[in-house]
C-alpha cells in the first residue's frame, strides 16, 4: 500500500551493479596492513582495552548472533570477528604487550581479506551479542573500529565503497544530489503538499534520505503532513538533508564527518533547535551519538528520531490519532540502531498504543530484538545476500509466532530487508512504516492553528 513493488524492484536491480562504480584505491600490500593497524591503534580506547582484556571465550555471544545462529558456522562467532583488532591491541597497546608479542602474530593482508566478510557481510553491528556477554563486551563498537581499519586499507566491500565515495565527493547517493532532491520536493509541492524548503529560520530541521526520496516518498510526505498538522515551524534544506551516512557504514571516518557536518551546518544556518532523523536506522546514532564527537563539541540542537518524536508528541497529548481498530494485528520490529543502540524503545510503542491496534510483541523485543539481517549497510552488500536471508528467517519466525498480520518498523533499511526477504521467501506479512501509518491516522481537521494549512489527502 505504501510502496510500489515495481519501483522497489527497479531499485533492487541497481544493487548488483552498485560495486562497479567503486574506485578502489591503489595501495601496496604492506601499506594496507599498516593503514589498518594504525587505524586500530588510533581508534582503540581504554574501554575497548578493558573489553579486550576481559573475554573468557565462553562463546555465549554466538547464541545472540543471527549470522551464527542462521549458519552455525564457527567463523561467525561474534568475538572472533575482533581477532585482528585484538591481536593489534595485544601487540601494540596492551599493558602486557611485551609478553603478548612473544606468541601473538602480527596481522597479515590475507587475514584482512578473510576478515572483510566477517566485519561487513556477517555483522550488522546490531549489538545483540553484548546483551548476552557475561563480561559485557561491546563487540559491535569494536567491529566498527575493524571497519574503520578496513576502510583505511581500502578493503571495504565495493558497494559500500561506491556509496561512500559518492556521498563524500558528490554529496549524492544513488545519483540523488541536492538538485535532484530539490526537484523531487518541488514535484511534491506542486501536488499540493506544503514542504518548506531551505528556510532560513526554522525550529525543526527535517532530514530525509535518498531512499525516502526515491523509493519511500510516502515517508517524507507523511512526515510533512504530521509536522504541518502539528503546526510546527520546520524546513528541509538542500545543504543538509541526507541523513544516511555511508562514511559510518563503510568505516570511512572522513566521509562520516563530512556527512554529519553538512547537517550540523544546515541546522545552524536555519537556527533549528531540533534535527529530525527520518526512518533510517544508522542515521540516528550517527547524529545522536557520533556527530558531536566529530564536530568537536556539543551540538546546538536536539536530535530526534521520527519515531521518538511521534511518541513524545503522542505522550504529551499534542498529537491525537484516529484509532485504527483492534482488528489490525500488528507487531513492531525494533531497529537495532534505534532501540538497542539508542534507547528509542518505548516511544514507538506509545504511538502504536494510541493507534488502538492489536499490538503483539515479538518474543525477543526492545533492546533484545533480533536484527532483521540487513543493517549497517549489509543490505547493499551483494555477497552477503545468502547470509542475510538466513538471518532474516530468524526474524521472520519471530514475527510469525506473534500471529500479527503486519510488521511495523521505523527504519528504511529494515523495511528494505524485510521486503527483500519476504519476496524471496514468499512471505505474506505486511511491512509498514510507523510514520506512514501515523499520517493515515491523523484526524482530519484539528484546530484553527494559523498559517500552515495542511492540504491533506
Amino acid at each position, binding site marked *: 500500500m505504501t510502496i510500489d513493488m515495481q519501483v522497489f524492484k527497479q531499485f533492487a536491480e541497481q544493487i548488483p551493479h552498485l560495486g562497479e562504480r567503486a574506485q578502489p584505491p591503489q595501495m601496496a600490500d604492506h601499506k594496507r596492513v599498516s593503514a589498518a593497524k*594504525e*587505524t586500530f*591503534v*588510533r581508534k582503540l580506547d581504554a574501554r575497548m582495552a578493558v573489553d579486550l582484556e576481559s573475554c573468557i571465550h565462553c562463546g555465549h555471544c554466538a547464541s545472540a548472533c543471527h549470522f551464527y545462529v542462521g549458519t552455525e558456522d564457527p567463523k561467525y562467532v561474534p568475538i572472533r570477528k575482533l581477532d585482528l583488532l585484538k591481536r593489534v591491541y595485544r601487540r*601494540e*597497546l*596492551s*599493558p*602486557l*604487550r611485551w609478553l603478548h608479542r612473544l606468541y601473538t602474530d602480527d596481522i597479515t593482508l590475507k587475514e584482512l581479506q578473510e576478515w572483510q566478510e566477517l566485519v561487513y557481510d556477517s555483522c550488522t553491528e546490531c549489538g545483540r551479542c553484548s546483551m548476552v556477554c557475561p563480561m559485557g563486551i561491546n563487540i559491535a563498537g569494536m567491529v566498527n573500529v575493524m571497519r574503520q581499519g578496513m576502510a583505511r586499507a581500502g578493503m571495504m566491500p565495493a558497494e559500500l565503497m561506491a556509496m561512500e565515495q559518492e556521498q563524500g565527493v558528490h554529496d549524492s547517493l544513488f545519483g540523488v544530489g541536492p538538485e535532484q532532491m530539490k526537484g523531487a520536493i518541488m514535484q511534491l509541492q506542486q501536488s499540493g503538499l506544503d514542504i518548506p524548503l531551505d528556510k532560513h529560520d526554522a525550529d525543526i530541521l527535517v532530514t530525509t534520505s535518498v531512499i525516502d526520496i526515491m523509493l519511500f516518498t510516502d515517508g517524507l510526505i507523511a512526515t510533512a503532513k504530521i509536522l504541518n498538522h502539528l503546526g510546527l515551524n520546520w524546513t528541509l534544506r538542500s545543504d543538509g538533508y541526507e541523513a544516511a551516512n555511508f562514511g559510518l557504514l563503510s568505516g570511512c571516518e572522513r566521509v562520516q564527518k563530512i556527512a554529519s557536518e553538512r547537517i550540523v551546518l544546515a541546522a545552524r544556518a536555519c537556527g533549528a533547535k531540533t534535527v529530525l532523523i527520518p526512518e533510517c536506522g544508522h542515521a540516528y546514532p550517527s547524529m545522536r551519538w557520533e556527530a558531536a564527537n566529530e564536530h568537536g563539541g556539543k551540538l546546538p540542537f536536539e536530535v530526534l528520531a521520527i519515531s521518538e518524536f511521534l511518541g513524545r508528541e503522542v505522550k504529551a497529548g499534542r498529537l491525537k490519532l484516529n484509532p485504527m481498530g483492534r482488528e489490525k494485528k500488528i507487531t513492531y520490529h525494533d531497529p537495532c540502531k534505534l532501540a538497542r543502540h539508542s534507547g528509542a524503545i518505548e516511544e514507538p510503542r506509545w504511538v502504536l498504543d494510541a493507534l488502538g491496534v492489536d499490538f503483539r510483541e515479538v518474543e525477543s523485543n526492545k533492546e533484545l530484538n533480533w536484527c532483521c539481517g540487513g543493517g549497517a549497510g549489509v543490505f547493499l552488500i551483494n555477497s552477503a545476500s545468502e547470509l542475510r536471508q538466513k538471518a532474516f528467517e530468524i526474524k521472520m519466525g519471530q514475527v510469525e509466532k506473534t500471529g500479527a498480520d503486519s510488521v511495523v518498523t521505523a527504519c528504511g533499511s529494515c523495511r528494505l530487508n524485510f521486503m527483500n526477504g519476504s519476496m524471496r521467501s514468499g512471505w505474506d506479512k505486511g511491512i509498514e512504516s510507523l510514520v506512514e501509518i501515523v499520517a493515515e491516522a491523523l484526524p482530519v481537521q484539528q484546530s484553527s492553528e494559523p498559517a500552515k494549512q495542511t492540504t491533506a489527502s
Partner: protein
Amino acid sequence: MTDDKTLGERLRERGVSRRGFMKFCAATASMMALPTSMIPRVAAALEQARRPSVIWLSFQECTGCTESLTRSHAPTIEGLIFDHISLDYHHTLQAASGDAAEHAREAAMKQNHGEYLLVVDGSIPLKDDGIYSTIAGITNLAMLKDVAAGAAAIISVGTCAAYGGLPKANPNPTGAASVSEIIDDKPIVNVPGCPPIPTVITGVLAHFLTFGRLPELDALNRPKVFFGQTIHDRCYRRPFYERGKFAETFDDKGAREGWCLFKLGCKGPTTYNACATAKWNEGTSFPIEAGHGCIGCSEPGFWDKGGFYEALSKGTYGSAEGIALAAGAGVAIGAAAAMGSRARQAQADRKEEK
C-alpha cells in the same frame, strides 16, 4: 660388662615365669607394633637374645631423651629391655667418671669392635672445628667418628641427633649437624622426637635384640612401624576435623569438648610419630589429649617452621613490605605501559594527519 646370658635366662633368674615371659613377649610385640601373629617368633628370638654392648654418646643435648627413657618405672617392658643391654658408656647414667669412664668406652669399643650398638643423643657442632662441645677434651665430632667406626649400627635418639634439633635452629650458632650429616657408612636409625617416646626407643632396641637387625625404615630413616602415619591420621580428635569443628581458643567450648586443635596450630597433619597410639607416661595421654596441639617436635627443622600456634595452612612468609613493593612495581609498570601505549597512539595520530 657383657655376660653370655640370654634374655630368657636373665628373666627367669629374676623370677619371671614362662607365662610371664609370654606376656612380656606379647607386650614387646605390641610395643614394636608387630602383628599378634608374630608373638611366637618374638618369643623364640628373645629367649635366645644375647646381651649387646651399647655405647651412648651425648652431645649437644638437654638430657631430655635420657630422662624420657629412664622415666619408665621398673619393671616395665622398657625397663627390662634397657636392663638387658650392656650399657657400657653413658656419661649421665654410669657410675664411673673422668678417665675411668673414657677407659670403659675404649675398652667396650675394642672388645666388641664391629658389633656394638651406638646410641647418640644431641647434635654435633661443626663450626670452628667443633670446639663448642667437647668431652674429656675430645670434640663431639672426633668422638662420633671414632666410635661410629666400630659400631654395627647407630641409633640417633631425639630430634637433635636425628636432624640437628634445637641447636641447629636458626641462626645455628655452633654449626650443629645431625649424625647422618656426618656418618654415611653405617646403618642409622633416626628416632626423632623432643624427646622421643620411650617405647619407641626400646622398641627399636627390642627389634635389634629380637631380629639382630634394624627395623624397616622410611625415607628419613625412621622406623616405619612407629613413624608410618601422622599424628593426625591416628588422632582421636580427627572426627571433629572432618566435621569442621575446631577449638578457636584454649578455653572455649570447642576446647572443652575436645574439638580439633588445627586452628590453634596443631602440627598433627604433618608430623609422623606414634604419640596418638603409644602415648606418654605409660600410656596415660599425649599432648593433644592434654589439650595442646602437636608442635611437630619429631619433624626436621620443627623449630623454624613458623609459630607453634599458627595454623598449619598459614604461610610462613612474613613480609607485607614485599607485597607493597610488588604493588608499587605493578602500578609503575602499568603506568609506564600506558604511557607507552599513549605515545604509540599519538604516533598513529600524527601519521594519520599527514
